[in-house]
Structures are given as C-alpha cells and as structure tokens.
C-alpha cells in the first residue's frame, strides 16, 4: 500500500506553494486533498505530505489528529453529521438522531454547523440539509442512495 497525489492535486499543490510564505501552510490543504483522494488519511499519505511540504511526518500526524474533520480510519457507510448544539437541540435534533437509528448510516454527533436559523441540520458530503423532519430525512437519504 502506498500513496501518491494524483496529477490534478500535484498541480494544485504547486499553485498553492506560490501563494503562501512557507510550504508548512500547505498541511491542511494537503490533508484535505489526500482525504478526498482516498476517502481517509493513510499513514502513507502523511509520509508523502511530509516530503512534499518539508515538514516532519509527526507534525503532520499531530495536525491530522487535532481537527475533527480529518479521518484516519476508512468507513464503508455514509457519514451523516448531525448538529447537537443548542439551537438545533431546541428545535428537535434529538428526534432526528433517534430517527437516524433506523438507517444504515454512520451518524456523528457534531457541534454547531452554523445552521442555527434553519435548525435542525445534518451534513452529508459537505452539503447541509436544513429544517429537518424525520420524513425529510427519509427523502434525502433515499435520494442519495
């Protein structure tokens, strides 16, 4: 098992190098690229990023494990982020969480997604689904199958 950035990502990395005072700034962008490319961040990818931007692999690993949106383990199910913070809770996020138990998805309870005015909210593949009801959840998940 090994990792290498695909051509589009390698080109993007070159563009980014010209936009920051130091290549170290590229650790988050590179981690994102690796995650989109492989579905999760492998230790091989961390080594490659380390070489690409000249930062110790341990430092890249420290960064990858600090931010909640980076995943170092593969998942097979669809990942559904459900906001459990106050405004969503006041507007019924608990019933959405309860309802999701009946679906074959990986539910992650996350903190505020910035959809407080359109609560409750879930996020799937970077897209927010707002003003949720249990019925709406069924429709959305069906359409994403």
């Amino acid at each position, binding site marked *: 098992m090994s990792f290498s950035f695909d051509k589009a990502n390698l080109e993007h990395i070159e563009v980014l190098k010209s936009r920051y005072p130091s290549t170290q700034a590229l650790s988050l962008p590179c981690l994102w690229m690796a995650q989109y490319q492989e579905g999760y961040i492998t230790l091989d990818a961390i080594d490659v990023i380390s070489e690409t931007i000249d930062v110790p692999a341990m430092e890249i690993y420290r960064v990858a494990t600090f*931010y909640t949106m980076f995943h170092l383990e593969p998942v097979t199910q669809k990942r559904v982020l459900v906001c459990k913070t*106050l405004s969503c809770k006041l*507007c019924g996020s608990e019933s959405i969480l309860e309802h999701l138990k009946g679906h074959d998805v990986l539910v992650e309870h996350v903190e505020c997604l*910035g*959809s*407080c005015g*359109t609560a409750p909210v879930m996020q799937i593949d970077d897209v927010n689904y707002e003003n949720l009801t249990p019925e709406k959840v069924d429709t959305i998940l069906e359409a994403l199958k």
Partner: protein
Amino acid sequence: MREALIVSRKFSLEESHTLAVAQKHGAYKTLQKLQNLSPVEVIEIIKESGLRGKGGGGAPAGNKWALMPQESEKPSFLAVNCDESEPGTFKDRQIITKDPHLLIEGILLTCYAIKAKHAYVYIRGEYYQYQQVLQAAVDEANAAGLLGDVEITLHRGAGAYICGEKSALLESMEGKRGHPRLKPKQPEPEWYFGNPTLVNNVETIASVPFILEYGAEAYRSYGTERSPGTLLFAMSGHVERPGVYEAEFGVSMMEYINHFGGGVKNGKKLKAVIPGGASTGVLTAKEAEEVLLDYESLRAMGVSLGTGGMIVMDEETSMVAVLKNLLEFYHEESCGQCTPCREGTGWVDKLVGKILDGRGSSADIDELLEIAETMNGKTICVFAPAVSAVIVSFLTRFRDEFEAAL
C-alpha cells in the same frame, strides 16, 4: 424600528452572488475613491467611523489597522476570519453566499490601507459549500481584472472551534494545530510566519465599502455613540421566524425579537435569551425586556453582545439541560493546550450532567462554581474565562432550577 441596511443591502436581490448583479448595484465603485486617498487616510476614515470588530470582541477596527506598519521590509497580510463557529451565529455565511463581492471589495480596500498584497480568508471546514460560492466570486472578480495586484486565497479549516480565535487561526493557517498564542504585553499586529498581519471578521471587512462610499458620519448616523453602525444580528431557537436581520446598535432586544422574529414560537412565554452566541452568558425574560442591543448595555447587565446571535428559549426549556448542552460543546472544543481548560471543561460537564440526571447534591453546585473560579484567568486564551462566565451567569439567574433538580 427604522431600516438600517449596510452589509445586507443586496441580500434580497436575485443572483446577488454574481458579479453582474453586484456591479449593477454599485459593487467595486469605491475602489475609484482610492485614487484620491492615501492608505493612512483610509485608516483615519475607518477610525472616525467607530467601526468595531464584528466577530465577537467589538474592538475598534481602525486602531487595529493602525498597528500595521506602513513601511516594512516584510510583506503584510490580511487574514479574514470566516471560522464562524460560535453556537447561535450564522451571519458570515450569509455574506459569503449572498454578497461575496461586498466582502471582496472590502478586502481590496483593506489591503490598500494596510499595504498588503495578499489576503487569506480562513473558512471553517464545515462551510465548504459556501466556500465554493465565495471562490466562484473571487474567480469572477479576478477574471474581470478587479483584484489588481492583490491575491485572495481561501483557506479551509477542518473542524476546530478554537480557530476562530485570531492567533489560533493564524497557527492553523501556518499548518499547525489551532493552539492560541500568548498575548503580547503591548498592542502589536498579529504575525503570520513572522510577517505583520491584520485579522478581521468577515462582517467587519464587509462594512468597509459602505464607510468609504458614504463617509464615517453616515456610518455613525446609525447605532449609538459608543456602538456606531449596524450588526447582522440573528435569532434562533424558540422564535417564529429565525434568521439573520441587520439592525442598528441600540435597538431594544425584545423589539428586535418581535419585529423580525415574530416573537416566541407557538405563542409561548419567553424564559431566557442568550444574547450573542453561546459564550456570552444568559439573560432572564425580564432582563431581555429591558436591554438594548449594544456593547455597553449588555456589558452593564453582566453579559456580552458577542456576535449578536441570540438564542431564544421558551418557558418550557430546562436551564440545567441548556447549560449541560453548552458545557458538552466546550468540553468537546477545548483545544487542550492549558490544563485548567482541558480538565475543567470535562469536570463541569460531568457535574452538570450529574445534576441533570437527578444525582446531584448542593455540594456539586458549590464545586461547580469553585471550578468556574479556578478556570478563570489562568489560561492562554479567553475560552476558559468564557466558560467560567457562562456557568456563573446560569447559576446566578437560574439557581433555583439547579437546586430543584438536586
């Protein structure tokens, strides 16, 4: 309540995020004014306007700009804070999706004033779909030759509340963990890889074009003497019409909630309002009836204006459950750098959980307050002091509810 639209002027237009619509309604016109203004003069206008940072702190923006060197061998940078993660806050996403060109115009004006050639917009990772709207606008403006010699780069975060703190934001943008830095003794710029850098919230920067177009006095004609201008206040929770509605500082909180929000949901009675994002404390219904929405009035009540994102709670809400919810948030989001915060947020979360489950004793309330005291003033950033103030605020105003749950 009189209409006061400064940042949200174009929000209701169809296709307002496109360059064509934005330009049809005057976008980028203020750039021409720069021909007759020096950078220092721009900073003076911002100072005169009394513009205050709209990310929560409310510090005078002009003073912060003036800290940037006008002569420097090192390059200067602008970092725009779009890490909007304070629970109850969802205003910056309106700007980057409904009028991204206003932000870009503000960035260009600000870069001119602080002599920066490169601006970064740090956007929370969860806002990727909104980031793409802003990126499209940047590309469109660039293709139209509007950016001149300024480069704008959008930098995506990856899930960390603390990166909204300006020094943590810069650490994160340097490719590191988002750990806040120690505060300097004297006011100085922020530093990005050792280069002088200005960090301002999206809404602050988006207010700049209006001020340059109509002048500092026009901006001051809204709001109060010490809190001039407007804010994209917002409402969520138990309110009929939640959302973001711009209003001038100094309006009555209840009038705002009733006028824009249609009052408490389902005709219920109001119990409490969190005034400006989770970390600003809590007000009783009676206090909410009396208070005005400006920095000084809220401060006088022992809470803060924060981001102006109000969370409205009706009479059936358990304040113990609300505090538990907030403490879970803080426990999850403490960056872990300082022990009083890393450990303290866990302890207080557990204690309130115990009270909520009906297993608490009066000694737990005392301990809760003692830990809150210990967490205050002993950490690098204001995260732990804010948690401490939230606990005190809830226990001062709703102690009977906590005691009834024992």
